[in-house]
């Protein structure tokens, strides 16, 4: 199998194209010691070419392989649950029937009526929520099968935000492509813009200058901190512990505002482009940022102390929405959700981008897999990121912020991974003979992690739903694309 590293590309001709049965075995083998990063299709001739990208996190390597299939494929999911959503997507997008898949329902399409899983029996009742929710959030539909207050099963029906992002990127890159990447998931603008830039750079054989890389890394951590802090506040609100909700909420704004000072936009729109970044960090801004960050760090310690040391908060989040390590590994969960189950998976450490020089940020781990673990991992990560940021602004390398980035080379496949605040973002770009994108595949970590929310909810109380949901805070937009 062809080994490649994060942010590099290979010739598509060099890809092993295996017969379906062999391909199937190779993916199963790869998923056993490692995991599936991406698994998708592309129409080719009469049939469909399936592509799989596998990761070996310990070795820091990736492998890509392909197989040409007709309209059927023997599903991997019964042997390998992490293939679940990938296979549903392939079936939906390319009409490849996944034989033996236990749950082959539409993932995004609303073309046909959707049949929900139902539990029957005395005193069983169903709770339906969404797509228009009570609060200010994105659209999705949830069905809970309950016995009294107890949740037996949760099913999540998504697709309401399907805009057609991947399709719109086909035949790119064009002048809209970077914007589309930025708003694949709007709260992860930096993560997706960076993955896009790395993919295009990998295809054109260019590399961003060290200063640009440092600014990108800073923006990525600012985005992480803003979201983690915001979610801790949202958890406070759902618990009804309002002082922390207000305080975390204000501090979230500090980080967004810093990102805005850096890039001109609170979400970092227009900062990262192939070749580098569009905004430099003047010395005064760096000094100012260091001061602002140190102040925010001190305040955060106080409010996080209040949150995590209040016994009524602890009793509400400890033991709630537990995921086991086995479940985590079977689904190959990503980001804080995985790290809260004791799985130390982190792209920043395992698959650093090309040219990275700074030592990686420590990986935060918790063992209990509950709402407490997920929120505590996020608090630990916030602290690590803050240290990194304060040092990063102090020690910015000198030099240019942008290098020339030519057009993508034809007939290549590039993979880029970024540890966004929710976990691993993967972009896989394939160019045709004309150098244009023949397929552009985006995976937001939510795509893999939504299933974890349904598992975490089993056997809990219905009133635990907001807490569980908030502790993951998955993206609807990033899933629906």
């Amino acid at each position, binding site marked *: 199998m062809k080994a490649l590293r994060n942010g590099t590309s290979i010739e598509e001709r060099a890809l092993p194209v295996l017969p379906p049965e062999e391909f199937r075995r190779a993916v199963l083998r790869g998923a056993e010691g490692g995991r599936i990063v991406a698994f998708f299709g592309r129409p080719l001739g009469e049939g469909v070419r399936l592509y799989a990208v596998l990761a070996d996190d310990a070795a820091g390597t990736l492998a890509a392989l392909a197989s040409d299939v007709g309209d059927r494929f023997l599903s991997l999911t019964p042997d390998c649950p992490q293939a679940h959503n990938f296979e549903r997507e392939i079936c939906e997008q390319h009409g490849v029937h996944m034989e033996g898949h236990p749950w082959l329902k539409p993932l995004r399409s609303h073309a046909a009526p959707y049949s929900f899983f139902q539990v029957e029996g005395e005193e069983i009742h169903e709770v339906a929520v969404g797509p228009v929710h009570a609060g200010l959030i994105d659209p999705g539909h949830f069905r809970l099968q309950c016995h009294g207050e107890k949740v037996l099963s949760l099913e999540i029906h998504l697709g309401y935000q399907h805009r057609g992002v991947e399709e719109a990127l086909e035949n790119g890159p064009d002048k809209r492509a970077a914007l589309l990447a930025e708003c694949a998931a709007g709260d992860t603008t930096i993560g997706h813009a960076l993955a896009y830039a790395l993919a295009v750079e990998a295809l054109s054989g260019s590399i961003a200058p060290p200063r640009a890389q440092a600014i990108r890394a800073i923006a990525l951590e600012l985005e992480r901190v803003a979201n983690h802090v915001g979610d801790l506040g949202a958890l406070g609100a759902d618990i009804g512990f309002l002082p922390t909700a207000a305080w975390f909420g204000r501090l979230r704004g500090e980080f967004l505002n810093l990102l805005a000072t850096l890039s001109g936009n609170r979400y970092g*729109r227009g900062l990262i482009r192939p070749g580098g970044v569009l905004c430099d960090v003047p010395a005064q801004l760096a000094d100012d940022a260091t001061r602002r960050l140190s102040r925010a760090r001190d305040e955060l310690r106080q409010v996080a102390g209040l949150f995590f040391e209040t016994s009524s908060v602890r009793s509400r989040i400890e033991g709630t929405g537990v995921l086991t390590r086995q479940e985590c590994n079977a689904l190959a969960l990503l980001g804080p959700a995985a790290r809260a189950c004791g799985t130390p998976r982190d792209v920043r450490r395992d698959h650093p981008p090309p040219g990275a020089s700074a030592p990686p940020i420590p990986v935060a781990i918790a063992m209990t897999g509950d709402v407490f673990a997920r929120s505590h991992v996020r608090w630990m990560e916030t602290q690590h990121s803050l240290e990194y940021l304060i040092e990063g602004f102090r020690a910015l390398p000198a030099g240019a912020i942008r290098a020339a980035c030519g057009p993508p080379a034809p007939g290549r496949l590039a993979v880029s991974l970024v540890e966004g605040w929710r976990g691993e973002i993967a972009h896989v770009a394939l160019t045709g003979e004309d150098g244009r994108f023949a397929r552009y595949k985006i995976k937001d970590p939510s795509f893999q992690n939504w299933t974890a929310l349904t598992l975490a909810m089993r056997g809990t109380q219905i009133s635990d739903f907001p807490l569980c949901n908030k502790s993951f805070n998955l993206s609807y937009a990033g899933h629906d694309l």
Partner: protein
Amino acid sequence: MAMPENVRGRPVIDTGRCPDGCRACADACPTDAILVDGGPGSARIDLGRCVFCRDCVEGCPEGAITYGRDHRMASRTREDLALSEGVKLAAALERKMLKLLGRSLKLRHVSAGDCSACTAELQALGNVVFDLARFGVQFVASPRHADGLVVTGPVTQNMRLALEKTWKAVASPRLVIAVGACAISGGPFRGLSAVHDGVESVVPVDLFVPGCPPHPLTLLDGLLRLLGRIEDSPR
């Protein structure tokens, strides 16, 4: 009030600098937000399509386009967002409507396919910094309790029905506020087959708030203008 330092406010074109027949900015714009439909110096920016990306600033050889720090840009009609002298800021609702609303405005949010950044800025309006509730404006959990809708996103095919139903569930007279480039024109998703290119193609709109996403100050300004709490001449 002005935008915080470095934040991109309303873009301005100094058309006096535009050479004859130049379309460099329009060609650079990824959302076709720049209209050059008349003779020389006719270039103007449609703020309903603009995503504030600055590609036009880089694309203009004359340095004619700059970002101002003006956060005010909400308007009452779609056309008012694309004027050569900037934008015609929103006028207050008519008296009768204002009287009906009294001192409070209750809004229901419908995310109709937004990327989630517009939603996040609406959430931010509720924090202790912007504190929308102090103006009597509140987001409510049901359309039955609402005076109107705030809609974000281009309206995906998959959200159309839900938007229509939610709109019908609000008692008349009802308001609709379109927030962000997507909700106004489709934004970066304009023309894609899975979306409707904006709220207006599904329900009538009373206030358009440009941005990608709009800064909370822009949102606040638009809402308060609609309620007649701010009235000043356009800058």
